[in-house]
């Protein structure tokens, strides 16, 4: 390929990625040349600015018809745009949380690394969301993973941090291997790594064995990727890693990385397996034939997450299980494959982003002072900081899916999607609702601590501006989308024409 073909590409559509890349590089250099003594917080703000810039440039692209460059390895369709939006907003807020992060034993000399690794991870996620080729997809995935391995181990001198990083690396690598193994089979059956071409080929395979092989590949990929989603069967790393990792990283893992996971799984499943025959009599496409397996995983995830969460005393661990459960709810969306799938997924991920990040901001603030992460730390929070307590309460209610919050609308949406198809997924919905009720126990347990229990120390707490911003934004969004969800839905309907271009 010569220069002018290279120049002929519409590089413009990659602006957001370029911005992030640039900022990441800049940050690393700045960190290198900044005197040790100087606080690295400034880097955080630079990164924040970068993300905002990327966000703006992305918004500029909204509404345009889908484009793809580099032989269709990078495509910017409405799906990519919509979910990049979430990624960027999420990371922006995580960054704010990170800026407000001051653990006891300090993090100063690593703070710089933290920011540019964080940017790298974000870049990986963004690449994933708009890659049209297995290779770019894989590279993006690894960029995200490897960066977050290091992020998890950021607190070098903290044993828990090291351990969580170690666990993350090993499980992550195994997951990658499994995913890749699955991919390799798909490649073998199609002879290409380009998603679109793949689905083209797969429509025409008829050989029983090939179809079976494809099925195996499907399961390997699903299980491999379930690592990123932290859903069954590859969920068990989450509690340990969440607990050990620095709180901002935990927030990042539980929101951004999870979102990325859903992006990639949708990309792969619905572009590769949507058109492949399942080889059964009525000629269903494979994805529909294997729907029930996903449903099974979803059910398992919801049950596991919610039941085990009942026993947790460590707040971060609790939220790890809660986020497992939430991932289970999201799997329900994929399992039900209704015409609302993309909207539902997008809305719920958005709602989840806000309520979870808001909660994590508060958790970080409450726990990092005392060092202890026991739920008891929340005792009497209402006395010490009413605003924090009420905000936390609203986030919890939203996570529990109580009306008036975004979480409720999201769940409503999920239920509808699951019940609309002619043979509705009643069992799945019942499990989801039942486990939701179970989740009341631990969510309200935290509230009982905050409102009913006497305060451990009655010292008033002052909140750093960055955290206040995060909490404020999350609070506003959680309530706004709970009361006037149409703002989001109209935006979705108006600008992403039903994600129809996903399949073209």
């Amino acid at each position: 390929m010569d220069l002018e073909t290279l120049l002929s590409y519409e590089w413009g559509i990659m602006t957001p990625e370029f911005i992030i890349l640039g900022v990441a590089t800049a940050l690393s250099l700045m960190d290198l040349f900044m005197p040790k003594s100087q606080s690295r917080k400034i880097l955080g703000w630079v990164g924040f600015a970068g993300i905002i810039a990327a966000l703006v440039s992305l918004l500029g692209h909204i509404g345009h018809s889908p484009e793809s460059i580099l032989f269709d390895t990078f495509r910017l369709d409405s799906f990519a745009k919509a979910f990049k939006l979430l990624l960027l907003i999420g990371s922006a807020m995580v960054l704010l949380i990170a800026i407000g992060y001051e653990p006891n034993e300090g993090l100063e000399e690593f703070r710089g690394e933290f920011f540019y690794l964080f940017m790298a991870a974000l870049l990986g996620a963004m690449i994933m969301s708009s890659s049209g080729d297995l290779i770019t997809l894989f590279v993006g995935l690894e960029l995200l993973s490897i960066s977050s391995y290091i992020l998890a181990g950021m607190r070098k001198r903290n044993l828990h941090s090291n351990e969580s990083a170690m666990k993350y690396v090993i499980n992550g690598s195994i997951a990658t291997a499994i995913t890749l193994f699955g991919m390799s089979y798909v490649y073998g059956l199609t002879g290409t790594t380009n998603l679109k071409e793949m689905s083209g080929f797969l429509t025409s395979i008829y050989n029983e064995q090939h179809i079976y092989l494809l099925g195996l590949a499907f399961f390997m990929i699903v299980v491999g990727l379930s690592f990123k989603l932290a859903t069954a069967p590859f969920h068990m790393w989450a509690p340990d890693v969440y607990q050990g990792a620095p709180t901002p990283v935990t927030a990042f893992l539980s929101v951004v990385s999870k979102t990325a996971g859903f992006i990639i799984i949708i990309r792969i499943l619905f572009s590769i397996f949507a058109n492949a025959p399942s080889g059964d009599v009525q000629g269903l496409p494979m994805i529909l034939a294997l729907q029930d397996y996903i449903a099974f995983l979803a059910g398992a995830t919801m049950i596991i997450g919610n039941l085990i969460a009942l026993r947790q005393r460590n707040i971060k661990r609790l939220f790890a299980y809660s986020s497992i459960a939430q991932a289970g709810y999201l799997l329900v969306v994929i399992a039900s494959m209704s015409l609302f799938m993309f909207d539902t997924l997008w809305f719920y991920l958005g709602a989840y982003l806000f309520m979870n990040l808001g909660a994590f901001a508060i958790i970080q603030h409450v726990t990092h002072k005392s060092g202890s992460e026991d739920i008891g730390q929340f005792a009497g929070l209402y006395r010490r900081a009413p605003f924090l307590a009420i905000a936390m309460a609203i986030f919890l209610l939203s996570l529990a899916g109580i009306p008036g919050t975004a979480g409720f609308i999201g769940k409503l949406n999920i239920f509808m999607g699951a019940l609309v198809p002619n043979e509705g997924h009643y069992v799945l919905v019942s499990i989801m609702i039942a486990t939701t009720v179970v989740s009341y126990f631990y969510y309200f347990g935290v509230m009982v601590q905050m409102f009913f229990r006497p305060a451990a120390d009655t010292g008033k707490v002052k909140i750093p501006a960055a955290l206040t911003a995060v909490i404020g934004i999350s609070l506003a969004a959680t309530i706004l989308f709970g009361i006037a969800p149409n703002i989001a839905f109209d935006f979705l309907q108006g600008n992403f024409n039903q994600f129809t271009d996903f399949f073209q």
Partner: protein
Amino acid sequence: MSTVPVQAYLALALILFCIGLYGALTKRNTVIVLISIELMLNAVNINLVAFSKYGITPSITGQIFTLFVIAVAAAEVAVGIAILISLYRNKKSVNIDEMDAMKH
């Protein structure tokens, strides 16, 4: 000399993958575990290469993919080792089964 059938390669890859997986899930020494993961990734590479030659529709992409995998695998192991070292600093042990400070 395409006497070796594709199935052979696939079988080899599969076996290699399983050995790797077995090692990764049973060995006590973390370094060994990382190496076992390498095995798994190499199994993938064998698959890809084999397919790019004897696949239904052979193409060069597989080998390109392989290159990426190799590179990424190297990076992963590097990071793994790095983390292991920092962990060793605090814990004075590389035994994977002793890394259970956080559980339940």
